[in-house]
């Protein structure tokens, strides 16, 4: 077995945290190697060290058998290492090809040879089975497509070793399948891949080996063929995890949220909501399923006051909230776990304590008049951190110092603890480990059982099917069907999500 990367005794300490503690890790040529571990286990830190974004406090790195000193991402790229982060760094009004060649443009005299560039990109894409239009503009393509651009960019720069940090967290099931095929093709061409993911199904289907880390230490490296999902979950969390949610049947009560013929436009001024009608009752979880980009994000933005509607209305407990400000809507009793924790959910340069009260910061008990009560705020933050097991040295560190999953836990904790009439949970478990997912799911069900209304939006069909009591399918800005979750199947959802109809296939499916 030829080792392309070997990391020996890597230790990295952040204030109050040992992110990596004497870690040994190796990547063999032509394998897909998954790094698995709880939120905050130190996976991203280890990969950032390999990519030259952080320097280790101690330890050595060997690439292709040679000891190396990687000080910057530039060094890493020279060594043939490419990394794709979960959030992408693409130039939004550039084309796919322009983004890929950026920094390494084919030249014709002093001008960029665009024709050559498009050809190069096409060739590269065909080689590995990427379906992508080199001339499309970034802001017009889906997140899944953008991710392909990031991977192609790394390949274009000559990466033989590819690091993918949670590439599937933002992808739809179809896109995940496509990515799986691409990864297999890459390996066939002799590339080696390090994959970080929390989705155990993917681990089993995509990888050759798995290295499990817990609290900064390597627990074990195993062959995927010799392990199982349950085994991995247990090694990772240190206890048995139930991957199935057991919940009592819902006892839906009065209508809490009523959406009537709601309409809105996207950033280009095109209609994205074309008359949405929906009701969410107390004591139920209503899941919205749909392929990304069919209006679910905009729907939530409208009912949280972050986007203007162009028609229709929405009513919370009999009160018309259409056109109200975000603060009025929060005060009316809507809490919201946003889909993008970095854009909306957190002020990354605020402490956890300050983030813990965002949205409630101006009211008692956190403020009296204009004076804030920081003692109370910190105390409250500590409660959230304890209840939701947010891994952090204390409540005074900045949100940016937390691992992605722990940031997500903090946001979820804050919103669930607001005790709202309606809880909107958009991708609530994005980036969470199995243990944390289990807990957040339990809390959402608890909210339901306390008689709250929960509106769940998720790209993960498993999550929708497991958690929801009713499932509304959104397609092209409209709700095209509402199914009872008890007898809905993935197949039926798939048909509706693709714009098909169930009418003559099955009776009674639509309630």
């Amino acid at each position, binding site marked *: 077995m030829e080792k392309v990367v070997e990391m020996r005794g890597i230790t990295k300490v952040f204030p109050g945290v040992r992110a990596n503690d004497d870690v040994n890790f190796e990547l063999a040529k032509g394998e897909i190697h998954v790094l698995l571990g709880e939120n905050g286990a130190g996976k991203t830190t280890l990969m*950032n060290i390999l990519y030259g*974004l952080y320097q280790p406090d101690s330890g050595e790195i060997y690439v292709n058998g040679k000891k190396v000193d990687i000080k910057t991402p530039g060094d890493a790229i020279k060594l043939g290492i490419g990394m794709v982060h979960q959030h992408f760094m693409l130039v939004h009004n550039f084309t796919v090809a322009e983004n890929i060649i950026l920094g390494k443009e084919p030249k014709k005299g002093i001008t960029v040879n665009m024709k050559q560039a498009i050809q190069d990109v096409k060739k590269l894409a065909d080689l590995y089975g990427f379906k992508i239009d080199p001339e499309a503009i970034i802001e017009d393509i889906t997140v899944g497509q953008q991710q392909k651009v990031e991977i192609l960019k790394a390949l274009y720069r000559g990466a033989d070793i590819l690091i993918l940090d949670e590439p599937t967290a933002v992808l739809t099931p179809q896109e995940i399948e496509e990515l799986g095929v691409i990864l297999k093709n890459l390996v066939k061409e002799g590339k080696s891949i390090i994959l970080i993911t929390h989705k155990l199904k993917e681990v089993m289907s995509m990888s050759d080996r798995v290295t499990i880390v817990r609290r900064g230490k390597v627990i074990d490296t195993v062959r995927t063929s010799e392990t199982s999902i349950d085994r991995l979950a247990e090694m990772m969390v240190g206890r048995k995890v139930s991957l199935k949610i057991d919940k009592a049947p819902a006892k839906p009560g009065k209508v809490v949220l009523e959406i009537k013929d709601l309409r809105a436009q996207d950033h280009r001024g095109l209609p994205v909501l074309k008359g949405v009608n929906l009701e969410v009752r107390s004591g139920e979880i209503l899941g919205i399923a749909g392929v990304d980009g069919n209006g679910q994000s905009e729907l939530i933005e409208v009912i949280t006051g972050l986007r203007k509607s162009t028609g229709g209305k929405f009513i919370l407990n009999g009160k018309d909230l259409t056109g109200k400000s975000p603060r009025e809507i929060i005060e009316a009793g809507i809490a919201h776990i946003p889909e993008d924790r970095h854009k*909306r*959910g957190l002020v990354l340069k605020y402490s956890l304590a300050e983030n813990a009260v965002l949205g409630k910061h101006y009211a008692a008990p956190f403020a009296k008049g204009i004076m804030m009560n920081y003692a109370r705020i910190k105390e409250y933050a500590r409660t959230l951190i304890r209840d939701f097991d947010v891994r952090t040295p204390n409540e005074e560190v900045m949100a940016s110092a937390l691992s992605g999953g722990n940031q997500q836990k903090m946001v979820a904790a804050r919103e669930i603890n607001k005790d709202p009439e309606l809880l909107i949970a958009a991708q609530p478990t994005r980036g969470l480990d199995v243990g944390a997912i289990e807990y957040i799911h339990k809390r959402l069900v608890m909210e339901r059982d306390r008689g709250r209304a929960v509106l769940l939006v998720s790209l993960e069909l498993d999550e929708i099917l497991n958690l929801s009591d009713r499932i509304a399918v959104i397609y092209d800005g409209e709700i095209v069907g509402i199914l009872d979750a008890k007898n809905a199947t993935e197949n039926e959802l798939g048909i509706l999500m693709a714009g098909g109809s169930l009418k003559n296939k099955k009776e009674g499916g639509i309630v």
Partner: protein
Amino acid sequence: MTANANNSHNSLLNVLKSTYRTLLFPLISIIVAMFVAVLFVVWGRGVGFFEGTSLLFKAIWNGSFGSKDSLIETFVYVTPLLFTGLANAVAFKTGLFNIGVEGQFTIGVLITAILGLISGLPAIVHIPLIIVGGILAGAIWGGIPGYLKAKVGTNEVVNTIMMNFIAMYLSNYIVMGPLNKPGVASTPEIRPSAMLWRFLGENNRLNTGLFIGLLLIALVYILFWKTTIGYEIRAVGLNPYAAEYGGISIKKNMILAMVISGGIAGLGGAIYVSGIQHNAMELTGFIGYGFDGIAVALLAKSHPVGVLFASILFGALNSSAISLQLVNIPKQIVFLIQAIIIIFVAADYIYKWIGEKRKKEAMING
């Protein structure tokens, strides 16, 4: 994770580390600026390096802190800088660039020169009157571009620059027109009841305005880190999307920050007239404290306590102009030093910005 006992030790270390990191660049920039200034002295005067160094530093020291008179004069310069530095810091924290502090200061000067002429008021009424007048005038002058930015979306930088010119010409019209003191290019002296107490005697221009400035440093500190207003304006400055999501009105806070910033600048103008200047003069150019305040706030990294130290540095440099000339060093060397400091601080911001982008890459993970 280490034991808790270790944590408290660590946190002290971290505070020290982060303070060190925050202060590192401003300190380096000051040292480099001084070094370049020394080189110029060496070159211009044809003396050795050590002689040049001692010549320059002696002159600056003598002119700023060396004698009682120079020390007093330094703090006369420091006083208005405290206000304009704080005014800029408030805007920076909200992510705004209030170039209009200069104009807001000027309008505060003008209003005080006018209100100060009212006769028959006891000081206990007159001084609060000019203070409120200065704050209001500056607040309006800052609020207008703030309002335009929030409601119409016009750039605050362009609008505040225009407001600066309006303030200057309005001031000149009044100073040379309706309120001109015949024979001189200024308004008449304000009434004694509108003058701040010069606690070191009438001949020393230092006055109680300095203490108002120091008090304001504490107030701005509290504003930033203890009040909901500070929480909201900092959130808007750091991440407007998250602020909006958290029910914080970006528009309202932009206007508010410009009003507060302008109010502080206007107050500075009021203090300047009632404590130091005692009238408003015809302006052939901008007074300059507003622009110096930008540099002060940048060097202070918008921290109120930093504003104090940066103001003292700039005040000391300004007041040493005469003693520099006494030893045949052109006073422009002061501008040179200030300019280099600003360039360095600006470079630091750019460097940070790039580093931030890199860090963002490292940070933005699953």
